[in-house]
């Protein structure tokens, strides 16, 4: 790691002021540090100053009843996933968090940090290679390189990286809002607008301003989905690996068995969780059967293209969407044990 200064911010505005301070090298916020320190050790990221925000932003999880729930930015991923209210009202979010990382990392990683984690593209992680996200203008070694884990949707000639979070796939499906504060005051960013597509500025992962601080994640009331939700994660090993494809699926059913509402987001396929509201709307009024789910998958994956090693992701994503919707139809999967049928 490069040498850096360290301060603890006691209040959100103090953290904002530190970020706004002039200088050639940036100040960065640290809460859990599980991704930032990893990247600083290998030289993919650096900082002149680390601002510890653990005491500066809320860490409470607040049940707001009909208004949903507010998750503090500094609350740990594990605390969030195992919170009784989150488990009861947002089992999809709990399942997604528990599908990610390891228990040790979930104990340390913050909710805001989960949103701001960087891609696990091997070339982003390797300062010896070209990467427009790490070093703008240097090129993209992944496009013609080993791109097995890379994007099939929404990528650009500059960058084919994927967003690695599981939690964020559920937050996209649940239409979360990211609450931030900055020099101009507070604002809320709808989750669909929080993570960017790479375009020609892949160094920017999000629409968060350079001197804005995340204070909380607000969830609307989504209790109608609590009985039928699943987070399916397909990966190279059964636990503690990033998704090749993951699916957050939730259904609300009418009394006649047809679909009243559907929510669907896919991870591991793009620079942000991939959600196509039209694919959800087309399921409304339909029976929860394979044809309905396959049509949703087709609609969601429209325009998908491979780059060689990741061509397999297109049929894998199609099948995973269908299976996740079938699982959601069956009930609620909490990802606290081995997936059914995976090992004896």
């Amino acid at each position: 790691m490069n040498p850096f200064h360290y301060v603890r911010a006691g209040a959100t505005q103090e953290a904002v002021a530190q970020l706004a301070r002039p200088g050639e090298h940036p100040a960065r916020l640290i809460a859990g540090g599980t991704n930032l320190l990893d990247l600083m050790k290998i030289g993919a990221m650096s900082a002149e100053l680390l601002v510890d925000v653990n005491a500066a932003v809320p860490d409470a999880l607040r049940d707001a009843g009909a208004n949903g729930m507010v998750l503090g930015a500094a609350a740990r991923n594990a605390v969030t996933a195992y919170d009784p209210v989150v488990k009861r009202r947002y089992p999809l979010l709990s399942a997604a968090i528990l599908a990610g990382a390891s228990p040790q990392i979930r104990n340390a990683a913050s909710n805001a940090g989960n949103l701001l984690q960087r891609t696990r593209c091997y070339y982003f992680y390797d300062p010896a290679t070209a990467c427009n996200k790490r070093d703008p203008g240097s090129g993209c070694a992944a496009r013609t390189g080993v791109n097995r884990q890379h994007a099939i949707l929404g990528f650009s000639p500059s960058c084919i990286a994927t967003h690695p979070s599981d939690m964020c796939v559920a937050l996209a499906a649940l239409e979360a809002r990211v609450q931030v504060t900055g020099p101009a005051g507070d604002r809320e960013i709808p989750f669909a607008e929080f993570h960017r597509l790479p375009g020609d500025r892949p160094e920017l992962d999000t629409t968060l301003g350079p001197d804005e601080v995340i204070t909380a994640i607000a969830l609307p009331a989504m209790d109608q989905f609590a009985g039928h939700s699943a987070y399916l994660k397909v990966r190279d090993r059964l636990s503690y690996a990033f998704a090749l494809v993951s699916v957050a699926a939730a259904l609300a059913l009418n009394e006649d068995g047809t679909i009243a509402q559907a929510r669907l987001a896919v991870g591991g396929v793009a620079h942000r969780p991939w959600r196509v509201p039209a694919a959800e709307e087309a399921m409304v009024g339909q029976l929860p059967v394979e044809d309905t789910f396959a049509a949703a998958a087709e609609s969601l994956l429209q325009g998908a293209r491979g780059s060689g090693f990741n061509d397999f992701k297109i049929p894998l994503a199609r099948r995973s969407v269908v299976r996740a919707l079938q699982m959601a139809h069956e009930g609620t999967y909490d990802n606290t044990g081995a997936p059914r049928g995976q090992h004896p």
Partner: protein
Amino acid sequence: MSTPPPVTAYPGIAITLTLNGVRRELIVEPWVTLLDLLRERLDLTGAKKGCDHGQCGACTVLIDGVRINSCLTLAVMQDGRSITTIEGLAGAEGLHPVQQAFIDHDALQCGYCTPGQICSAVGLLAEGHAHDRDQVRELMSGNICRCGAYPQIASAVGSCIDQAGQAAEDASARPGTVPA
């Protein structure tokens, strides 16, 4: 004579940690990880630097009883906290029950990952979310054992769950688990 360029100094930061029950006052540079502090400055070499990137779990320690990767946190971020390493688990009456269980179940071969495995298991027991063997395996997945002692590790940890009286819930009642 021109003015020399400004110098950026990186002063050490004073912190207090309770290390295996002993209060220590320390001055550390900001970039020192908790793992490096333990191993390089405090002679607590039980926690291992396997990968230094949070992938192997060999550096697992308990902070206020919660298991984390000590390689992925800065020592200065832990001011005021209580750190327990493998060196601090055994009490006056002998080994910690998880240490004894690892011996009883032959849950190691080379032993390099064992301090991290045991600290992780102690954290797992405190969390209380593992009730059957599948859940033990899933919730121990942050600890890699390159010798492949996983079946014995799962047995060792599972025996401690039984001792702790954490009765297995009806696994068949929970979707997403294999019915017993």
